[in-house]
């Protein structure tokens, strides 16, 4: 119980005293998650639309496959990406190991099924008459796709929020690919894992609260955007 109490106080201390290690981790988390979520949304939302909107043979199978990939553990993603970008892997020359872009690749793989699956569900939930309406008003395929996403914007945002949360709270990929290197690839979550490993439980909780504060900021932004729309 004390951990929690000390953790709360510790969180305030870290944030208010501008602890440089903590701020470095926050900054890394921000850069990393922005990079990975941007890529994921750019690729995932169109794929989710295609999967949710069109009927094609094997659609159910693809859907089941995507849902299955939701269960990919982060460590496994870390291993898979590592196999490719390790120096002896096929992409070793790119020097992506222990870098933020490298971790972003893993987080992309992690978040993509979430975005695809939930966007597809969001699109399926839209009244099919809406799509017909868009077409009768002369929307091109692309315009109709964008507009029907706008019609289902709450559910699409939910997909994005879920994926973003997954990305900032994950530790397996960041640890495996990023290496938790101090000042460089240490994110809030890998810092938490480190502190917990050291037995510094209240520090772990304090950093956890810092992460939640970070997520709260992001969500408040999203929520105020939502309100405007």
């Amino acid at each position, binding site marked *: 119980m004390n951990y929690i109490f000390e953790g709360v106080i510790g969180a305030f201390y870290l944030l208010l005293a501008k602890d440089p290690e903590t701020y470095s981790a926050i900054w890394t988390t921000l850069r990393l998650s922005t990079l990975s979520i941007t890529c994921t949304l750019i690729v995932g939302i169109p794929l989710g639309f295609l999967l949710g909107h069109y009927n094609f043979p094997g659609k159910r199978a693809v859907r089941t496959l995507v849902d299955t990939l939701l269960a990919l553990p982060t460590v496994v993603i870390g291993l898979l990406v590592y196999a490719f970008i*390790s*120096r*002896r*892997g096929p992409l*070793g020359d790119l020097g992506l*190991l*222990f870098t933020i872009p490298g971790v972003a690749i893993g987080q992309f793989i992690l978040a993509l099924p979430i975005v695809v699956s939930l966007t597809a569900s969001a699109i399926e939930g839209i009244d099919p008459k809406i799509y017909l309406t868009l077409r009768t008003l002369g929307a091109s395929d692309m315009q109709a796709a964008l507009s029907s996403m706008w019609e289902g914007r709450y559910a699409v945002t939910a997909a994005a929020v879920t994926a973003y949360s997954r990305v900032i709270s994950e530790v397996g990929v960041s640890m495996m690919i990023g*290496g*938790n*290197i*101090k000042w*460089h690839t240490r994110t809030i979550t890998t810092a938490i894992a*480190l502190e*917990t*490993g*050291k*037995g*510094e439980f209240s520090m772990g909780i304090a950093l956890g609260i810092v992460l939640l504060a970070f997520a709260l900021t992001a969500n408040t932004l999203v929520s105020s955007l939502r309100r405007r729309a």
Partner: protein
Amino acid sequence: ASQYLMMATTTSTDNTGLLNVIAPAFEKTTKIELRWTAVGTGKALELGKNCDVDVLLVHAPDKEKKFIEEGYGINRREVMYNDFVIIGPRTDPAGIKGLKAIDALKRIKSKKAPFVSRGDNSGTHSMELELWKKANITNIDKEEWYIQTGQGMLNTINIAAERDGYTLTDRGTFIKYEANHNGNPPLVILVEGDQLLFNQYSVIAINPKRCPKVKYDLALKFIEWITSDEGQKLIADFRLMGKQLFVPNAAR
């Protein structure tokens, strides 16, 4: 610093805070930044095999030798040691206090007292398995009292504490654990000082012949520095709770 050196090391060197002292000093002297990833010994060696790091700081002598023999690493230098201790509840239900390591394990087995093993192929785990072997105790994998955690040292100690069990730990981590409990931990040292419980840490440079891209020159500089007087003194002076954690023993 424009140049940096990538090191893979075991969790104990990082968790105790030793590297937080060494890295700045090294950079100050050599203008080389030290970056490290703290993983299990097994994983550190695997990273080395894949040429993903430049240098290793690990503590599993047998595996290290194999690693060198297979040509993955060169220039292995011993750096420091600490020792392993067997810890357990203050009440010591199996009564092992003061025994030799082998006898203590035999006692634990016969009393079926809970023994918590890391079970993760780490240096500590390798040492533990060796001790069981020396005590001629086999087939304990599925025993009710033999708990395999597959986790880091501190978590394993915590599990042992929760279960009122015994475990084998390196002294550094135990001091850290003591510190976490403000010097009054539920588990205390019951067996120590046995010659068998010696824990050697070494540095290894990754073989540039196999891995042309590794920063072999920087790795050599690090090895040279850590085995130098400056490096060795830093290790000797590193203290937690006023206790020394590692004993430098680099051979000249």
